[in-house]
């Protein structure tokens, strides 16, 4: 499994749901403002399990956890409640 860093999370989002994410998209920048929607989150939940072995629990499904490269990496590394 690859490491879940903020930058690998941005790469995953760009490859799978938001192809037009700018090259300089920062690790704190907001995916939702860049166009992420619930359908995109559904894809991401499936990719996170497939590529990073992360099973997202229902309690973890929040905008806060999916907001940025940084928050997604924290989620995948299992440091959230």
């Amino acid at each position, binding site marked *: 499994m690859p490491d879940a860093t903020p930058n690998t999370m941005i790469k995953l989002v760009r490859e799978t749901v938001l192809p037009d994410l700018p090259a300089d998209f920062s690790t704190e920048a907001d995916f939702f403002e860049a166009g992420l929607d619930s359908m995109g989150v*559904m894809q991401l939940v499936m990719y996170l399990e497939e590529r990073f072995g992360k099973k997202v629990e229902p309690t973890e499904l*929040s905008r806060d956890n999916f907001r940025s490269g940084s928050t997604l990496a924290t989620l995948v590394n299992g440091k959230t409640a």
Partner: protein
Amino acid sequence: MNAGVPIFLGNDAILNPDVLIIGGGSAGVAAAIAAARQGADTLLVERHGFFGGAGTASLVHSFCGLYDLPPTLEAAPHVANTGLPAELERELLAQGIAHGPLRMGKVDVLLHQPQRLALFYDQWCSRQPNLKVLLHTDVIDAAVEGNRVTEVMLHCRGRTWKLRPRSIVDASGDAVLAALTKHPWDQTPAAELQRPAYIVGIGDVESGAFSGDGPLKIAGCLARAISDQQLPAAAAGAHFRAGTTSNEAFLTLDLAGDSPECPFDATDARSLTWVELQGREVTFAIIEHLRGSLEGFANARITTLPMRAGIRESRRWIGEAVLTEDDLLESRSSDQAVANATWPMELRETARGPRLLYPHESKACGIPLGALRARDLSNVFIAGRCLSATHRAQASIRVMGTALATGQAAGNAAASHEQKTANLAQQVRAVLRKLESAR
């Protein structure tokens, strides 16, 4: 004048309206009203039992492309096209049929109730003295002499009759008249064609299920069920949105449309059949799953089925001019422009969510009259999603707000006796300017 009352036609009846409009969706209704208000005797034919097309029959529950792209986040919404689009917005809001506008990301949309929109269109049409409407009526054949369509054959449940209209607006969505007359048209290869959507109305979902993190909880629940093979993979195209009334929501399911028999083609009955069957199967399975798995959905049920799946793209006419991706990206306009396109190019080439391409500046692109005019048939105009545009440009202009505007322009043009496109464009622009100043 029997305003709006369907005329009776015997087997051999021949009617000769000034303008025949094929298809009663957003574009066709606007074209019909615009032509009638110019004084043309106008006949609007629609293959289903009500008007509104995608906005009623396919349960598309918001008008996209009705407003300008906001130049800043704080900018107030502004209707992009004068005349009928502005009139419709005003009326729908005043009658409580729509609410909004609502800012969704970088765009403004107007949410509406599809059922009440159908009634609104009936009443809008019946107020026009020169407009006659026929429901359950299809165009099945057309004769061409020289560079004109001289005769059109209509069909209703095994009964056929012929018309000799002076001019025609094809607002069928599928460029039906191009196919029937063998006029050049284009269609994107199956792999890139915009995907269809199956939309159902949902009732008895507890309020709050769609606010805050609700949509993400639903998405996560469906993703889990797909991974665990409790739901088919096609459920990944699902998207929920609350409706305009408290106890109403919509489930939109984007589908790939490729069947075991053939790749997706919205003019192939096998594809259309597959999409309808799969749409029903998967939407019912999703609701059944959510009833048992998610708070707020215990009593959820499908309350409304669409009359037909929503089709985003099929045939496109080849016109005198072809609207392109660059025209939209660069917000090009000219003295031939007769309708404003303001929606980003919304690519739905997969069933896994949209990809949006915005113009470099938040400015409208002016659609030239040449893109609403058949290249080789001088009395045929085009409106709505089958107008003359490239695949990518069509991804912007297909939306209902823009369809109202292209319909209005095509209807105005079709009502005129002027032949030359440059002069005709000036006439249409003069009509629009007059409406603007009357506001």
